[in-house]
């Protein structure tokens, strides 16, 4: 044996129908190292990792673990080889405690010594520097705590090779830093860690080496010490691109949109938007930050007239300064749930374009000719890749779907444009197309309100950033001067109080069930 790698992937290919997800991919992971797998959406990162964790099996090629050739046919096989994967979407049972979730699916031992298990878990927690209350129920946990449970679960089962699929996508900057500390501790303990991500800065901060995939092909592995952001982007995309987002100055400085003491209550009777007041100017991009479930979705829906408003007012001021009710204003809204709300998955581009305007005119028949022209225009201008404009859009990639949705909404010539997570799941090129479109609207004097997960992008794109936390505004700041870390603190600072309220409600519910 030459050098003993923990994982070796040799010439692995995987196809789904006509799509080649992985084309002759090679990968080596040493013991005690952190390897980042970098690639755009659809580059085959997750497919590759799913083959390591036994969810898919490769069409060609071989996988070696600790120098031995293996065939991993199920997640069970993967566990036996001490490979553990932490998926992007957690697989935990809400009403169980952390401990209960961790011991689930453990190899069958007749006797379960809970006290002993807990002691062992405490040791793990201490060893790597986790922070976790083992008796806390999952439904009381924040996203980062849930992730901790997933990681401990995998470690407790003895995994030596950990695969993390976009672990930081849902974390605040502070939580990300904590996670990285833990991962570094694991590395010191000799574990091999593979982390899938597309956040370049994090890759540079954390990993020892970086493997890059592009469109299913393996591009190469480089040492982090020899890498920089622009070089990595070039590897990922295949060409140089300018990563700067230009921020145009706000021209129209008049206040156009005014939201006063807006409160919305969801079906559970919880205040999802709690006494929110803010203003927005024409030609301004107002960014909204917040951890998921903080009320961003409901706030946007309330402005779009899709959410019932409990109390408060939303007003729009026209050129003459007359206040108008928001329902009379042309609002475009790109919702978070593209296929479930913004578009119809089974319809082609034309029929999806038609969604907005089909009812115009007296005729009982549909006019498909003008939407068809618009569809062609969007396909041309935004470079949508599709077999044809009548192909059901569910067969298109996420980026193309989003281009259609954003394209349609912008062509309505709105006065207010609201976008929720507009670049989620999009490749770099598509993302920049979307940022440019938002900037163009801003220059036209449209009020642009956007919710974006990536705080770096949010700060670069917006003029002002509003932070929502548990339905309340915790700050509206100038995006040019505020730091990412401060935003992170504002996103989480009052959450203790919030979850306490929520917990109380749970306790009450439980009492009801018992009585």
């Amino acid at each position, binding site marked *: 044996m030459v050098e003993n790698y923990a994982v070796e992937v040799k010439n692995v290919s995987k196809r*789904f*129908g*006509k799509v080649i997800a992985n084309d002759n991919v090679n990968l080596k992971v040493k013991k005690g190292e952190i390897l980042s797998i970098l690639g755009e959406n659809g580059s085959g990162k997750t497919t590759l990792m799913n083959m390591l964790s036994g969810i898919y*099996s490769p069409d060609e090629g*071989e996988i070696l673990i600790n120098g*031995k*050739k*293996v*065939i*991993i*046919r*199920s997640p069970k*096989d993967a566990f*036996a*080889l001490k490979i553990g994967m932490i998926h992007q979407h957690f697989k935990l049972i809400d009403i169980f405690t952390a401990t209960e979730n961790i011991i689930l699916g453990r190899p069958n031992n007749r006797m379960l010594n809970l006290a002993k298990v807990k002691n062992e878990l405490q040791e793990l927690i201490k060893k790597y520097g986790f922070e976790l209350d083992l008796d806390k129920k999952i439904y009381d946990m924040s996203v980062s705590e849930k992730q901790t449970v997933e990681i401990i679960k995998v470690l407790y089962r003895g995994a030596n090779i950990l695969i993390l699929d976009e672990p930081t996508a849902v974390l605040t900057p502070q939580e990300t830093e904590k996670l990285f500390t833990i991962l570094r501790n694991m590395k010191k303990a000799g574990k091999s860690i593979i982390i899938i991500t597309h956040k370049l800065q994090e890759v540079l901060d954390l990993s020892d080496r970086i493997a890059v995939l592009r469109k299913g092909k393996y591009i190469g592995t480089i040492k982090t010490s020899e890498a920089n952001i622009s070089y990595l982007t070039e590897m990922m995309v295949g060409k140089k691109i300018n990563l700067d987002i230009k921020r145009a100055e706000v021209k129209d400085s008049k206040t156009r949109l005014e939201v006063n003491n807006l409160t919305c209550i969801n079906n559970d009777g919880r205040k999802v938007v709690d006494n929110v007041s803010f203003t927005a100017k024409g030609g301004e991009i107002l960014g909204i930050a917040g951890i998921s479930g903080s009320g961003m979705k409901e706030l946007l829906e309330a402005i779009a007239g*899709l959410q019932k408003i409990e109390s408060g007012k939303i007003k729009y001021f026209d050129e003459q300064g007359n206040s108008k009710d928001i329902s009379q204003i042309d609002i475009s*809204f790109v*919702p978070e*749930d593209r*296929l*479930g*709300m*913004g*578009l*119809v*998955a*089974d*319809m082609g581009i034309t*029929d999806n374009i*038609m*969604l*907005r305007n*089909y*009812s115009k005119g007296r*005729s*009982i*028949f*549909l006019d498909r000719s003008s939407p068809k022209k618009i569809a062609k225009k969007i396909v041309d201008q935004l470079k949508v890749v599709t077999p044809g404009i009548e192909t059901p859009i569910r067969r298109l990639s996420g980026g193309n779907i989003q281009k259609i949705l954003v394209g349609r909404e912008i062509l309505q010539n709105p006065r207010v444009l609201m976008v929720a997570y507009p670049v989620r799941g999009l490749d770099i090129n598509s993302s920049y197309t979307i940022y440019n479109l938002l900037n163009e609207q801003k220059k036209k004097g449209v009020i642009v309100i956007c919710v974006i997960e990536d705080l770096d992008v949010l700060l670069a794109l917006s003029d002002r950033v509003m932070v929502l936390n548990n339905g309340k505004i915790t700050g509206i700041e100038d995006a040019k001067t505020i730091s990412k870390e401060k935003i992170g603190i504002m996103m989480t600072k009052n959450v203790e109080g919030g979850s306490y309220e929520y917990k109380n409600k749970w306790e009450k519910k439980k009492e009801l069930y018992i009585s």
Partner: protein
Amino acid sequence: MNIRINGKRKKNYIYLKKRDQISMKKSIGIRIIAIIMALIFCALIIIPITHLNPLQIYLEIINGAIGNKRRIWVTIKDILILFIISVGLVPAYKMKFWNIGAEGQILMGGVATAAAMIYYGDYFPNWLLLVIIFIVSSIAGMIWGVIPAIFKAYFNTNETLFTLMMNYIAIQIVAFCVIFWEKPKGSNTVGIINSATKQGWFPPIFNLTYGMNIILVLIITILVFIYLKYTKHGYEIAVVGSSINTAKYININVKKVIIRTMALSGAICGLAGSIIVSGASHTISTATAGGRGFTAIIVAWMSKFHPVAMIFVSGLLIFMEKGSIQIASLYGLNENASDIITGIIIFFLIGCEFFINYEIKLKKD
């Protein structure tokens, strides 16, 4: 532990792969193979049980369905009825409204038709009476479709249970009317209505007894498919069926669409009731719908709402039904024997959908 370290043991294993697309030719080919396999399978059952030559039985089935001119016309008449009921179900299913109440909607349409024939038979010329029949039967079916739709739209009740229960109410109403209109007294049937005057009967067109049935079914079918494909209403149905959230997002009044679509669906099923009563049986009983409201569900779904496919599927089902009556009387088998054959064919046809969606591949290790 089923990890096999690479060594001497090599093993092939098969796995499933989802097809992205399948050519028309291939998918029809798979279905034909399924029918052939179903017939072979039936033969394997027929031989040990009846000791008859299965080929002979199949020939008798064909003979029973299309053996002579009269049989051909009866088969066509029944195909048309089953087909038009499935057409009536399509708008509801496109909206993902699980209407299993066609049976009741047909019966209500049938009762309304019978009432018009009995009470207005002597007062209006036949053409006007038929117009009245079409109006009242579709209104009756419409009411039966709209009631569950209103409850669905406003109280989000389960439409499957609701429409099913409406069937039983319709059966009871028919049973009541049959006793009310009983003729001759004590027979417990209505008998042939207006048998002497033929008032309210579909008149023969081009010398064809069922000519009017054909024309009526054709017109309704074309209108329904134009409605679904080219009108704003049809588009709204597709959006509501695909995602209620999208419908709300673009300001479609979902409640209105649900009620309006079920009104249409119910009206067509009601009209189907008038085609059965006025155009075929000329009587009414609790068996007027005869389970066709349920069989039509199979037709609609198996053909994925494609009108041409719907004709083929309803044709196949009626063909087997007619053939089975023939073999039942000829060989002293009871009718269930042929239901078994139909059942096996349907089973294979539905089963072959799997091979249309997936392909099986052999992997060499």
